[in-house]
């Protein structure tokens, strides 16, 4: 007898549930997570070091967790800001998952932390699929990476609450076409805010911190289309069951 189980289960249901719990647990402690995604070399660490230092100077309690496949170099750099920093080595895994993050926070995250910045593994593909319980997801792209980056990595850019251009001080030298970059972000994520930053040139100092604090207090200012689901129209048979639809069984 052939049996078919109509499962209709989201593959990432376990991660999504962990992320949801983590977000609620942290919110109860007054902490919001900011998930930073970019390619390797876009300048996540440099920008984060600057914003962490600013936060300390302004008296905002923040902490940072940085994930890499190998080395503790980023944690050493971020620790220069003199805020609590933790390095996570993923042992080759290309992304963080909510359960891993939660495990690393136990016994480490200082009480009273308002913002926890998570510097994800440098990768614009895999981390995009994993909700870490963040309140704000920020995607960074440096001016050297090409204006079409949002089109090449539409899932990453499409799910961002905020997009930061980094290394803006060398934009002219590399012929960065900012209008085209912005149009490409707009195509995959209409309404998303795009801000220029440069650690060397001082541009956009504090914008990440300000946006993160605003999101902690009132939620993200922008909800990406890719995260909006229609509840009025359902196209495919799968939608009828919903994301975690009832488990039914049938025989054929």
């Amino acid at each position, binding site marked *: 007898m052939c049996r078919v*189980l109509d499962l209709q*289960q989201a*593959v990432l249901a*376990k991660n999504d549930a962990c992320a949801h719990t983590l977000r609620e647990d942290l919110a109860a402690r007054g902490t919001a997570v900011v998930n930073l995604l970019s390619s390797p070399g876009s300048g996540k660490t440099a920008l984060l070091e600057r914003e962490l230092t600013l936060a300390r100077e302004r008296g905002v309690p923040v902490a940072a967790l940085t994930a890499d496949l190998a080395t503790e170099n980023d944690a050493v750099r971020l620790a220069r800001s003199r805020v609590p920093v933790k390095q996570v080595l993923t042992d080759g895994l290309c992304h963080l998952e909510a359960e891993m993050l939660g495990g690393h926070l136990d016994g480490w995250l200082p009480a009273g932390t308002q913002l926890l910045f998570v510097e994800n593994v440098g990768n614009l593909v895999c981390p995009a699929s994993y909700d870490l319980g963040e309140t704000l997801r920020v995607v960074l792209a440096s001016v050297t990476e090409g204006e079409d980056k949002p089109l090449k990595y539409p899932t990453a850019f*499409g799910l961002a609450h905020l997009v930061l251009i980094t290394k803006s001080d060398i934009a002219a030298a590399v012929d960065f076409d900012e209008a085209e970059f912005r149009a490409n972000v707009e*195509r*995959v994520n209409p309404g998303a805010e795009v801000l220029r930053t440069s650690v060397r040139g001082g541009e956009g100092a504090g914008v990440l911190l300000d946006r993160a604090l605003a999101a902690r207090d009132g939620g993200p200012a922008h909800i990406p289309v*890719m995260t*909006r689901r229609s509840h009025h129209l359902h*196209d495919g048979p799968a939608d009828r069951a919903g994301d975690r639809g009832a488990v039914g069984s049938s025989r054929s």
Partner: protein
Amino acid sequence: MHEMSIALAVIDQVESAVRPEGATAVSRVRLEIGELAGVVPDALAFSFELAREGTVLAGAELVTDQVPARARCGGCGRTWPAGVPPRLSCPGCGGAAVDLLSGRELRIADVTWHDAPVPTPTHEER
């Protein structure tokens, strides 16, 4: 490549779902993968073949149905195939009040197996 993590999650969920049903050997798992899910079906198939060994899915075929990305404008009501990379502002009125109708699916649709054969009654017993 996070497809190995995805494959492990699929296997974990299928095992949890079919064991209480008494399944011993799953023959097929059908997934729905949206164009914008960020998952490469070929890479997932490769990972699945490695990850299924020693599980109830050891001989299972992985079938992936790709779900096209479609969007609808809340302003003018127009629907369109979003494509990849997606166009998520309305091509009709230019509005940004858009809903994604499909394309982000990463879902186990169904699982198929064969029950262990029940001894067939002989003619005399009927």
